[in-house]
């Protein structure tokens, strides 16, 4: 099931700053909500988002329950060379999703 939407320009000039938008499906349960019977709904969130560019980390975010459901993160990186941008989300209960996008840099 498709669970992430990545927006990366397919091509860029060398040295250009490109904007990347990411959206992933996740409930981001805070751990502060209760059921009708008063039981706490346990925390279940994405803890970390990492973007690597041809294997080198170029951006990282540590997320807490205050980040909205279906986390949306927009960041930028310098288009240094052609290759693969890889995006990894990890979190509670063994959550792990990896997506990637190719970029051509001329």
């Amino acid at each position, binding site marked *: 099931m498709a669970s992430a939407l990545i927006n990366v320009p397919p091509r860029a000039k060398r040295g250009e700053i490109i904007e990347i938008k990411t959206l992933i499906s996740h409930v981001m349960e805070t751990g502060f909500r*209760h059921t009708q019977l008063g039981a706490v709904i346990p925390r279940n969130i994405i803890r970390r988002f990492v973007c690597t560019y041809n294997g080198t980390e170029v951006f990282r975010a540590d997320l807490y329950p205050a980040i909205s459901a279906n986390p949306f993160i927009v960041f930028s990186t310098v288009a240094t060379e052609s290759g693969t941008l890889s995006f990894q989300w990890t979190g509670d209960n063994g959550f792990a999703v990896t997506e990637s996008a190719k970029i051509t840099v001329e």
Partner: protein
Amino acid sequence: MERAASRREFLKIAGGVAAGLGLGAVVTVKPASATPAEMQEAIRSVVGPARVTPGKVTIELPPLIENGNAVPLTISVDSPMTEAEHVRAVHVFTEKNPQPYVVSFHLGPRAGRARVSTRMRLADSQNVVAICELSDGSLWSDSAAVVVTLAACLEDGI
């Protein structure tokens, strides 16, 4: 702030009325919330004891939002983002959410531009604080106030 306090009072009274009308069990639970002091502690635990100066970092938040579940947040820092001078990290905190941490962004010279956006939850009208760490070790801050007309975190799971 004033508005939220009186609304909570109103809800407590109305809760009694509703219960009196026999409309079923109404649980008035005092919601968990951090305090400005707890936020300061959280900030210190992340950035250490060094001095924090207001400036350089800017928080963009709507002054009023209809629902605290998804408040668009943009953080930008005035920095050339070169190897010699760049933003290492930006940390965001809140005063009155159940816990004070929001997010930590780790940047670096590969970012090109120090500008990051996301969406956050706000449990009440309150202040949001961003602390940025530069490559020279200096710390800078900004704070913004948001009015939330319908809070996040407090709506129980239906």
